[in-house]
């Protein structure tokens, strides 16, 4: 299968200037390749850098060492190189990230929150509306809530709105941070189906799944980040 993501010699540490310039090493010399149709589950205890790695691929965190190459159309884009304009385009078209928390402008309706990623890629208002309604329905967000801001929703509902926004658009690479946490069994099932469908459609998926059963059902491969843990100097 086509390789979609290539990490080479990736290293990361945090320097906390405000707290006496403490240096916190995370990992070094990390290599990872993910192909279309694969679902790679990141493993490791809390603090091993699973979320950091995922955020680095999304360029939410800087990558001080190595390369993070993402196949964007016919080109490879190095997310570590920091070309903001290009990275924004990769995020719009190619690379989706469903974080654990929903961050939205207050007072914007749920329907509009879910439509937004489509509108920014040039989908018409009418088409975006239809697609957003379909995914909200599938994730069992009651229609009476669609005109309300998700900020007032329960944790599980917010997470489903977040997932709806992530999956309303078919993107070739998806990063999923605990997509089934805080979901009831029925909605968990829906989310597992969504992820498997995306994979069957050729998406390359990298995820953190503490839910061991979900991990078994979804992942084609596990990747232990602790093997690259940097030893504190």
């Amino acid at each position, binding site marked *: 299968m086509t390789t979609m993501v290539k990490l080479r010699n990736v290293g990361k540490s945090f320097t906390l200037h*405000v707290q006496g310039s403490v240096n916190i090493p995370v990992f070094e010399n990390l290599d990872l390749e993910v192909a279309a149709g694969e679902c790679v589950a990141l493993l490791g205890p809390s603090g091993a850098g699973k979320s950091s790695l995922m955020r680095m691929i999304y360029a939410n965190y*800087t990558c001080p060492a190595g390369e993070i190459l993402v196949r964007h159309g016919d080109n490879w884009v190095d997310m570590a190189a*920091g070309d*903001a*304009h290009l990275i924004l385009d990769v995020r719009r078209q190619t690379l989706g990230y469903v974080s654990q928390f929903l*961050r939205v402008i*207050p*007072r914007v309706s749920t329907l509009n929150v879910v439509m937004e990623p489509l509108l*920014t890629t040039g989908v018409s208002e009418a088409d975006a509306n239809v697609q957003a309604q379909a995914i909200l329905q599938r994730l069992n967000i009651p229609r009476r809530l669609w005109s309300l801001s998700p900020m007032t929703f329960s944790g599980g509902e917010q997470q489903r709105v977040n997932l709806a926004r992530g999956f309303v658009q078919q993107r070739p690479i998806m990063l999923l941070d605990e997509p089934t946490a805080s979901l009831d069994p029925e909605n968990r099932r829906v989310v597992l189906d969504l992820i498997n469908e995306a994979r069957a459609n050729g998406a390359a998926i990298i995820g953190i799944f503490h839910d061991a059963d979900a991990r078994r059902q979804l992942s084609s491969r596990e990747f232990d980040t602790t093997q690259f843990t940097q030893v504190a100097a």
Partner: protein
Amino acid sequence: MRRDEPILRVQDVAHFYGHIRGCEGVSFELYGGEVIGIVGESGSGKSTLLSLLSARLAPSSGQVHFRNRLDDEIDIHAISEPERRLLMRTDWAFVHQNPRDGLRMGVSAGANVGERLMAIGHRHYGNIRNQATDWLSKVEVDTGRIDDLPSTFSGGMQQRLQIARNLVTQPRLAFMDEPTGGLDVSVQARLLDLLRSLVSTLGLSAVIVTHDLAVARLLAHRLIVMKDGRVVESGLTDQVLDDPQHPYSQLLVSSILRT
């Protein structure tokens, strides 16, 4: 709507007030449909930079190029004063921190919005009034107040009126100096939503000076962090806020109060 060429190209601009550095060594490119936020403490050079970018202040060195509707790149500091005025009436909007600087206090709210349309050639009175009414409701100013003078409005209402006046002509680039500073949080949210939709659907670009990092996160795609007139860090908004590198950016981010 989104183009391959930047709409604004800023090359190594600096401005000195005598010996005092206003700002120095600033370069960036802004594309259609993109919002860049400039953050930093008072006196860091944010407003000086905004004035340089919008041709309100001549740079001591460096250049600012703007790509106009005809797709020509123009040096905004080299063009004639009438050309600059035309730009300010058509392609640009400037929202001042103090609404009194951006409004005409002696004419009605409706006229404040309508005269921007008339300045670019609109003549049909009914249409102008309808658009003015439409924009007043977009920024949540009671349309029953359309014939009142802005001086009878509260500060927050004046700010919303100023924003309506600026955006009614569908500018392509908006400069905003603390646009949501004096607003109630609910109105602030409404304006953020409005700006966001203009950006994503009409491809509006904006340069926004703010010291509210929450506003910056929700509105800006990219951030420039300034200190003592220089850029100490720049990059994707979420990257600068979630993984700041420079000691000053870290201090700024770690000082936010969370609710």
